[in-house]
């Protein structure tokens, strides 16, 4: 549950000294409650209050960093079960596995694929977060050699072996990069915890379908002084997926609603296990993506995936981007005039809205079609074209204001505005209010570049 500003305010000095940069202690408290400022910004806190506040503000799910410096990813940190209650923090880390049985060249190629996988959406470059090295060979030396190669990779690492000897060998090589160790179980618990403590690495506890043992192992590790844990309750990719979901949900509910100290950690899911049962690349890819979506929707903070086909990764990356948008803020770009390509006073003028998805889709289509044009972006408080039409933000008056205030009339001779096909019902009103002529463009902006070419050819 989110800590309220009032609860925080009580512990602040209440002097309104403004050293934190806020107008008052209450304003500071509000920002802290929304996680928009750091506690350290208040310089006047007594140590006791500082500690109390730090405890109060610790998120329900511990925030953990895998890796170091710019080779790192942060997971966990969530406060709520449902995103509408606040927002989700730290997007699910998407991790791809590699194996120590691979030939050096093959391994390097796969690392390269993982590092370079990307998909641009709504002005954001979506990428993968880490690489998991499996001790598939069961051989200590091989695992060590493969970690040497991964040491050079640009992404943070997960080391996967249940064998403490192999883990030790690998940690000796890459331990200073703070890899996530995977995994401790009932058998190897002692040695794994010792390694995690010695090298200051986060450690995963693996206890498939057994939350009692999970709880016991978590408590034991914490008693030994280990703070950064990740929980893997097992991913069952067939009928057992129901059990996996139950486990994920129970862990997160205990963390958020009961603040159970044994479960306040990020959860790890393993869609890669799909490939234990699936050989067909397409069927397997679709199934693996489905499992990834299932677990991501239910609190997975890390997912280890095996398939690297971009058609499999695109939906997973998109779902992550969607679930982790902040429901408190509209996804919007600034309104105003945007210039694309080479322009002169005869360049065409187009209009769209400032919903981020709308703007970047249109901009992308115009750029990939090498269009040269002015683009007027109407501030609709981040609403799509038809949404703002239905909601009233897109109307004759608002478009006229945009035309006048943007200064476009000084830049071009033309007085024709090309509007989205979906905005057609508003064309008369825009013409009446602005004195411009309106031309209705295609409904989907994928056709807009060709539309502009036709227009030019016909004139």
């Amino acid at each position, binding site marked *: 549950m989110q800590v309220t500003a009032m609860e925080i305010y009580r512990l602040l000095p209440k002097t309104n000294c403004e050293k934190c940069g806020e107008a008052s202690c209450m304003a500071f408290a509000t920002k802290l409650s929304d996680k928009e400022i750091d506690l350290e910004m208040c310089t006047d806190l007594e140590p006791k209050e500082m500690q109390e506040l730090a405890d109060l503000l610790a998120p329900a799910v511990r925030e953990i960093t895998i890796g170091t410096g710019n080779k790192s990813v942060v997971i966990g940190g969530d406060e709520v079960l449902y*995103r509408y209650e606040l927002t989700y923090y730290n997007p699910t880390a998407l991790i791809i596995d590699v194996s120590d049985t691979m030939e050096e060249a093959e391994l390097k190629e796969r690392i390269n694929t993982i590092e370079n996988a990307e998909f641009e959406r709504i002005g954001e470059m979506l990428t993968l977060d880490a690489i998991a090295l499996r001790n598939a060979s*069961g051989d200590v030396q091989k695992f060590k050699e493969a970690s040497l190669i991964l040491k050079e990779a640009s992404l943070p690492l997960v080391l996967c072996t249940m064998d403490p000897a192999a883990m030790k060998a690998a940690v000796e090589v890459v331990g200073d990069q703070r890899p996530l160790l995977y995994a401790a179980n009932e058998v190897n618990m002692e040695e794994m915890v010792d390694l995690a403590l010695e090298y200051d690495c986060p450690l995963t506890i693996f206890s*498939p379908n057994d939350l009692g043992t999970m709880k016991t192992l978590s408590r034991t590790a914490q008693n030994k002084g280990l703070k950064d844990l990740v929980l893997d309750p097992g991913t069952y990719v067939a*009928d057992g997926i129901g059990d996996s*979901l*139950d486990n994920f949900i129970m862990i997160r*509910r205990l963390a958020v609603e009961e603040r159970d100290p044994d479960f306040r950690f990020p959860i790890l899911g*393993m869609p890669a296990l799909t490939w234990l049962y699936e050989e067909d690349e397409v069927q397997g890819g679709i199934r693996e993506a489905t499992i990834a979506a299932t677990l991501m*929707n239910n609190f997975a903070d890390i997912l280890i995936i095996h398939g690297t086909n971009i058609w499999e990764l695109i939906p997973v990356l998109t779902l992550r981007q969607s679930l982790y948008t902040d429901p408190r803020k509209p996804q919007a770009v600034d309104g105003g005039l945007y210039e694309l390509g080479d322009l002169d006073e005869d360049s065409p003028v187009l209009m769209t809205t400032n919903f981020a998805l709308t703007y970047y889709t249109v901009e992308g289509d115009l750029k990939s079609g090498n269009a040269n044009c002015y683009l007027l972006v109407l501030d609709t408080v981040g609403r799509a074209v038809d949404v703002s039409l239905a909601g009233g933000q897109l109307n004759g008056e608002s478009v006229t204001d945009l035309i006048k205030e943007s200064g476009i009339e000084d830049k071009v001779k033309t007085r024709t505005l090309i509007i989205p096909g979906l905005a057609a019902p508003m064309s008369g009103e825009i013409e009446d209010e602005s004195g411009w002529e309106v031309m209705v463009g295609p409904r989907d902006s994928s056709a807009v570049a060709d539309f502009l070419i036709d227009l030019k050819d016909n004139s």
Partner: protein
Amino acid sequence: MDKMSQLLKLLEKTDYIEINNFRMDFDELELQLAPAMQRVIKQAVQQQTAVKKVQEQMEALEFIPPVQEYPGEVAEVQLGAGTRKKVLMGGQKTLYRFEEPQPNPPVVTFDVFDIPMPGLPRPIREHFLEVMDHPGDWAKKAVKEFGANMVTIHLIGTGPKVQDKTPREAAQDIEEVLQAVDVPLVIGASGDPQKDPIVLEAAAAAAEGERCLLASANLDLDYKRVAKAAVDYNHAVLSWAITDVNMQKTLNKYLMKEGLTPNDIVMDPTTCALGYGIEFSVDVITRTRLSALKGDTDLQMPMSSGTTNAWGSREAWMKKEEWGPTNYRGPIWEIFTGLTLMLCGVDIFMMLHPLSVQLLSEIGSTFTKNYLTTDVPDISGWITELE
């Protein structure tokens, strides 16, 4: 395989074995117990001791599932009566399966159209090309070949700008589909606020007593007429609001004033597709189901998703080399859209692609089982077993 190689094979994938139950003929042992074998057994014994040691050190903690009490519950809606098979949906008394399994699994209904629908994406046309001229054949194929629990017949052709089919013609299409299959129907109109209520009324009359779902009643059209048709001819109504919990409450209230009960209403809180506002649907659907369980009697109905909206996303249909084949992207986009909302509580899904339907149903079917009652494979060796 002889016992020895069986044992070796077994040991390959095992972290430790139960030495107590280990039995083997003496001569076999003497002959074949290779040094490698001895090592394995020694390791196993060591590991077992380690487990014991850890277990002794750690006091085993008790785990209590975080089960909650809910004052409200979701109404159960029956579709299908008369000559139809019966399909039940809703009826949840809890939010999660570990609290109490759902009484009914989520239901999928295949989209079928009264016209050949040239605009359908290619990966779907592929499956239905030869039956698209006849909604009856189309429905039959969905049920026979793809195991549809239900069929949604969209009377798109009644749209004034489409083919402007008369309500009578619409009724004939309904009759054709009713003849062809014995599953319950969802009956959708064209989306024209003036004409839809009249079309739905005629369709409802043609399907009298069969308990179909009339899609839909909303605040932009004469919902009273739709509600009356449902009451008069024994059907249920889809109550559609646009991603707005309060609008949904209002509409449900109005519908109940017209004589419908929660057992006659399914809600459509609007499906925004993956990447096109799915997070809005997630929030609204989650809030709706939570309110129902907390006791809000205006929201205690099952929910529906127009999952096929997913096909409108450009990632689903647009040809683009760097994104891979649309053959895979389309179905995944539909699965992700439906699945995400299913996990928030949606009960019935309108879908188009056979593979999407199959995967969604597989996961949905686990919702009715008890926690830890499914046989699960041993996954502890995945690190070495994965290809």
